């Protein structure tokens, strides 16, 4: 039978197919052998990497499971491991000395960089994330003043998976408030490798003094300590350069076109009292930046166009009057300008081009950029950049009433 050419051909086709089976099974892992990591934190301590991993405890995370799986609800939704090593991987491998489960990083949502590490340099960390197969470059990166590992210990209310909770927090924040952009690891890597060589990282901090890391402690309505987003950390090169306050961060968002929707408090009558007594929800905003070479320095023509709705008004005002509205618009524009200038001054002081101006200049004027690069004079050029902002904000609607309640009352 075997001497027929058809059979031989078939055998030749089947043999490689059978060899496929030999390659199977080597990397299969059952779900209950995995330590699903939802977040990681990295610190630099005594010239060693200190890594903290947050591993989900499934029997607590999923509620109402039948069978033997359902553990007691009082067991914490996640556990943390802190390990040290001379390299990151050495630290990771050491988790196997203490944990029953193999670390599984594909579902990580956040990574927190301690200030100590940020001052030491984060190149190696980024490299590990980009190189390792199951590490995800889509994790959100945060910076923490002090010990980053502490952040991962804090339990959250309403969400059991803390990593996912923090991700949700930053996503919502950047969508609704636009104070800080949510920075994913690949975005951080891209920003640091761009012409600007600088990036910003939102700070995550504990509002209270102590970490809430016991499940019984979360059974109160108002936690004494919560996770919160604070300032904006600036990274230059691969090391920490300084902080931007929340207000400056907001201004920077305008400069870098990261404003999605935002609430701006502004004085409705800037001339009279200057008191912040009105709120405006910016629903659309677009920033265009155009570098212009003027004699010996660059002028950045920043043009911001926005529109939105008035949501709060504390002064006597008749909104049927077009003049009143344009007055408010002007006040808003002033407010945005102020925020932006404030941010720009601080960025300049930190000498970190987190505005991405270098990229703009490279794109609009490649020749001059080459020259700047050759002379390595970007820091000087950056310091001499003059900001020429132009803000135009349109108040499209004034909400459901035409007069402020105060003016109704006074009649």
């Amino acid at each position: 039978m075997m001497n027929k050419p058809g059979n031989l051909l078939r055998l030749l086709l089947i043999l490689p197919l059978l060899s496929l089976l030999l390659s199977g099974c080597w990397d299969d892992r059952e779900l209950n052998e995995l330590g699903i990591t939802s977040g990681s934190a990295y610190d630099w301590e005594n010239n060693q990497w200190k890594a903290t991993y947050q591993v989900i405890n499934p029997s607590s995370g999923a509620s109402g499971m039948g069978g033997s799986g359902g553990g007691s609800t009082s067991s914490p939704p996640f556990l943390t491991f802190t390990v040290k090593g001379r390299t990151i991987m050495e630290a990771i491998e050491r988790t196997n000395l203490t944990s029953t489960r193999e670390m599984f990083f594909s579902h990580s949502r956040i990574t927190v960089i301690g200030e100590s590490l940020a001052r030491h340099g984060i190149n190696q960390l980024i490299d590990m994330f980009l190189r390792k197969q199951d590490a995800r470059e889509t994790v959100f990166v945060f910076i923490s003043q002090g010990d980053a590992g502490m952040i991962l210990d804090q339990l959250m209310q309403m969400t059991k998976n803390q990593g996912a909770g923090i991700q949700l927090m930053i996503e919502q924040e950047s969508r609704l408030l636009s104070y800080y952009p949510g920075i994913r690891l690949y975005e951080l890597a891209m920003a640091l490798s761009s012409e600007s060589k600088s990036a910003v990282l939102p700070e995550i901090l504990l509002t209270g003094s102590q970490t809430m890391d016991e499940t019984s402690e979360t059974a109160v309505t108002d936690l004494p300590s919560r996770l919160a987003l604070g300032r904006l950390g600036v990274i230059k090169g691969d090391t920490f350069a300084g902080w931007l306050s929340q207000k400056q961060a907001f201004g920077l968002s305008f400069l870098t076109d990261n404003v999605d929707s935002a609430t701006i408090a502004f004085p409705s009558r800037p001339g009279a009292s200057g008191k912040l007594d009105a709120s405006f929800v910016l629903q659309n905003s677009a920033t265009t930046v155009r570098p212009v070479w003027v004699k010996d320095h660059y002028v950045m023509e920043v043009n911001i166009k926005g529109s939105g709705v008035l949501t709060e008004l504390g002064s006597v005002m008749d909104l049927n009057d077009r003049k009143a509205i344009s007055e408010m618009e002007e006040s808003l524009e002033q407010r945005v300008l102020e925020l932006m200038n404030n941010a720009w001054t601080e960025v300049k002081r930190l000498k970190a081009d987190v505005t991405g101006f270098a990229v703009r200049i490279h794109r609009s004027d490649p020749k001059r950029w080459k020259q700047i690069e050759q002379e390595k004079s970007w820091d000087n050029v950056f310091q001499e950049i003059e900001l020429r902002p132009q803000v135009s904000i349109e108040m499209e609607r004034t909400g459901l009433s035409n007069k402020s309640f105060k003016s109704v009352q006074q009649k």
Partner: protein
Amino acid sequence: MPQEPKSRKTTQDPVETSVPAPLLLKLSLEDNLHELSHRIGSSSDIVTRHYKSEAEPPLSLAFIYIDGLVNADTVNQAVLQSLMENSTLNGDQITTEAAFKLIKEHILPIGGVKEARTLEVLLPLLFDGYTLILFEGLEVALAADTSGWEKRSINEPTSQGVIRGPKEGFTESLRTGTAMLRRRLKTADLRIEEYNIGQRTGTGIALVYLKGLASEQVLTEIRRRLNAINTDAILESNYIEEFIQDGGLTPFPTIQNTERPDAMAGGILEGQVGIIIDGTPFALLAPSTFFNFFQSSEDYYQRYDISSFLRLIRYGAFFVSMLLPALYIAVTTFHQEMLPTTLLISLAAQREGVPLPAFAEALLMELTFDVLREAGVRMPRTIGPAISIVGALVLGQAAVQAGLVSAAMVIVVSFTAISNFVIPSLAIANSIRLIRFVMMFIAASLGLFGIMSFLMVLLIHMAGLRSFGVPYLSPVAPMIPRYLKDIFIRVPLWSMNMRPKTNLGKETRRQVPNQKPQPVENEANPSPSQPRPQGEGPA
């Protein structure tokens, strides 16, 4: 029987039944009766009745029939009575030859009367319910069709029920089956060819087709394959199916079976050839492509939109039934990163404490279901509810609570099982029951990569299959766009102008084009009673 082992290998090796040489009838009635009783023994159901006229020399006849196969009324009234009371036969001097002619042409009030000279012809007729009339002094005998045995009445098909549509199914009787088709296809083109296959069973098999619609090549091929069957017994249509279907070693059926005369008529109208087998209500339709197995006759009895939707669901159910356990195994053991985090945590929580690996867990549950299903078919009706309660508890609650399997696996297995029943044809549903296990094994060893590879292998295999010359995956591979009107969706009937909807038979026009219902415009069309004024020809 000392036989050369070599001769067994020859294709002409007869089945092991004694096939004596043809035996001509003798002149002597006594001799013939003796030979007959020697052949068939003295079985209690064979009735022999002698008759002698009063004339001299007497006309001597013998009637032989099998009790239970004949209609007693017909035998008594049409044969015995009419002969015995005939004055010419009874009284007058008449030669045997003249009597034979008289009986054959005048006396017997029966449609089917045959004459025969050998026992080899007579015996099958006897077993078909004919009454044999043997004559003293003649080497030829008569056989009168008096058949009428107990039959099951026409019932609703049990395996292929519909909500809307005819509720009658084939019965075990071949003649009833052909009659049902005749009733549906009142055309002169309907052809019914009969065969008797099986040396011990002599099962009647009818080839039913419409001349001009069925492809001649297919017909020739089916006839050739039917004639080549040399076996002793055909008890059900599967015997024929296995003998004549293409690709003997494929898990996929290449011949449809149906219990519904309307489905069969529909198939025949598309150029398929029907094969009705005596003794089973399941008839065959060939050639059949993969997509035929997803068409239900109800598709044409419901509105086209819902039919199309249901058909798409069936294809989805096919893939679910084949792949879901395998995908579950692959994703939970190899590709955990593909799951959303919350689902992963929930699945991981369920797996806490489950002792078996996912593959063993799935295998256990699938086998449990197959055992239950088989038990459901075999068990007596009266204890059915008990088994289903135990089954539901074993499969569901208890297994999970005992920590043997995870709750998600129960969902996967039940959904797989239910999906399997969505497919209208049991033939193809059964074939993927087996493929599912292979898939699970491959998923457990190779993950998604293995599933994709095996799907490729399956696809290549299916693309190479043929059913009586028709590619199994046509009209998708090879792609024939104009035949796609009734494959994944069903277009409205007025837009299916060409037959067939696949290349099963010859392509001919089915109906006049442009029959889409239009509102009547009063001016253009003053007489609304006139039916379809511009119906003819393209507008």
